[in-house]
């Protein structure tokens, strides 16, 4: 039971943060593509803006990993 709950928690940690990241990046990416059609030289800044929300899923991965390792569910 405990192992299952740990696994569920780890899955939720990474799943929810991945959804949040993808929602954020899809909106930024859409706006970025629109900006690029007007000003192609902005590509560097747009890559950075699209990449910023990824920190959420990385932290989610870290939490999931700690839960799996700490809870003995890995």
């Amino acid at each position, binding site marked *: 039971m405990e192992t299952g709950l740990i696994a569920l928690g780890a899955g939720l940690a990474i799943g929810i943060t991945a959804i949040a990241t993808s929602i954020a990046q899809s909106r930024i990416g859409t706006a970025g593509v629109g900006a690029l059609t007007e000003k192609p030289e902005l590509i*560097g800044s747009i*890559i950075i803006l699209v990449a910023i929300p*990824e*920190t959420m899923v*990385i*932290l989610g991965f*870290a939490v999931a*990993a700690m839960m799996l*390792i700490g809870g003995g569910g890995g």
Partner: protein
Amino acid sequence: MILEMTRVQIVGIRGDLQRAVRKLHQIGTLQIDNIHNIPDAPIQEFSINPETQKGQEDSRYLITQIQGLIQTLGCEQAAPADSLSDIAPREIRAQINTLSPRVQELNLARRELESEQEILPRYITTLKKLLPMVPDSANQPGNATIGVLIDVSHINTLDWISKRVLEITRSKAEFVAASVDENTQAMMIVCPRAYASEIETLLGQKDVSQLNLPAEFSHLPPQRSLEALNQRLETIPLEIEEIERRFEELAAEWCPKLNHWLLMLEDTLDEVEVLSRFGETEHTFIIYGWVPARDYEALKSSLEAEIGSRIFVSALEMTPETRKLAPVAMENTRLVRPFERLVRLRAVPLYEDIDPSGLMALFLPVFFGMMLGDIGYGAVLLVLCLALGRRMQSGFLSDILKILRIGAVWSMVFGALYGEAFGTLGEALGLRPIWMDRASPENMMGLILSFVAVGAIHTMLGLVLGIWQAAVHHNRSHLLERGGMLVGLVGLFLLTGTLANLLPKSLTSPSIAVIIVGVVLLGTSMGKAGIVVGPIEFVGVIGNILSYMRIAAIGLASVYLAKVANDLGGMLGNLVVGALVAVLIHALNLAMGAFSPTIHSMRLHYVEFFRKFYEGGGRPYTPFRSHSSPDSR
């Protein structure tokens, strides 16, 4: 490395203008500034006379014509004729005017043949369906055959047409009908030729489609029409082949000339268009520009050799304001050059920035290797990059392949450290990890901490570079900001060490004090809002370091997908099918493994590393250079 630039002023007599411009174009090292953008220039903009403007328009038109001919003849890759001497634009126009009609004629003929090749099969299909039912009367010379095509939804119209035709021909017509396809019904009317035009008028009034054969076949009886159509269909490819052969002859004769004239005219146009950037007085022209410092003496001596003492070339003093306007020319070794493109993707460096291409060349392939980390994948990627790289000598893809090549080598290195070859297949073949087995859950925390440590080192290197930049440029705000971040991080690492029992507990209070000092310095650089923004920015830096955990995350994703490939291949029970499935999944993993680590390595540099020291926003060095120059191609 960013080349040192010299700001140059060139003053000459107006009569020598054309020679000077041509010489500058040939030398190809001077970037010419627009006189409008030079606030301290006490001169007026150069005025171009109407005759020169007319010449400009003529050249543009000729260039467009030549580009069209090059495209039609397929000359894009042909080398321009080197031994051809330059001729005046009007002579070029005369020669183009002899070539264009020939090319247009061949083009038109080819299009007509291709159109015929597309349409004739439809006629043949319809005739084949109707022919078995056509009465013998259709072959009599006095009779005409009219074909009608109608949509199946209007099939009742055929009855109406039949009745009207019988009225017109006084019952001297015969009809046959057949289905052409699921949507179309065809009917053939055989009647005396005298009634043909009246029937066609009737069909036209009712907006009914007629089966109009090409004129050369329409007068023939149906069977002979079909034979003639088939014969024609067989000869069309031969005629197209003949036209292609004539195109190739024209291309062989004209392509070198066309490409030479195109370069010549583009150069001529550039030499006219650049005049608008010059300044003038009553008797002189003045040019302001930039040249790499090492090329200044060569530029000066070349111009003076060409024009003599009537031209004056001088190097101007660089003030802090003019330094900001200097264009940026990057020059690096062959190994680092592909990474310049990635740096420019983010932003062209400022003249006073550090050129981060070398740092990127050092770290990006290592991060790539850490993520992919597989001997098998690295070897396959290396072979693919070498094979594809032979076909591409320059351009964006060529640079990416060179970068991937280096990354593939590092992948093999880290593959040996992790003991991976096509995932867990290496282990089955006796390969053992030199450092740690990534796939093992016991090593996951160690793996994550290792890459966080890599991130800490990389980030601190960025901050050190940023502090150095700030000190060199006497930027107090940046010095405090980056210094504060660095001090705060040092304190944080000390505190982490004491909490992990790696350092004595007595260091706990000093390390907290160091963190506070760092945050205060950081906050001070941001003014009054620093008391709130400072701690937030510090947490942001910690987030930047934690971001390097993605190296572990992406690497583990690759390992587990490779594991799935191997396990699934083994489970199927059939060697051939299992191997095929495993190869397909490995191929997918390799494709993702080439793409994803590249993007994430770039992102770590652009976001986590460059933001600590790199400003960007400079303007690239674009010298006034002839299109014929090898550096322009």
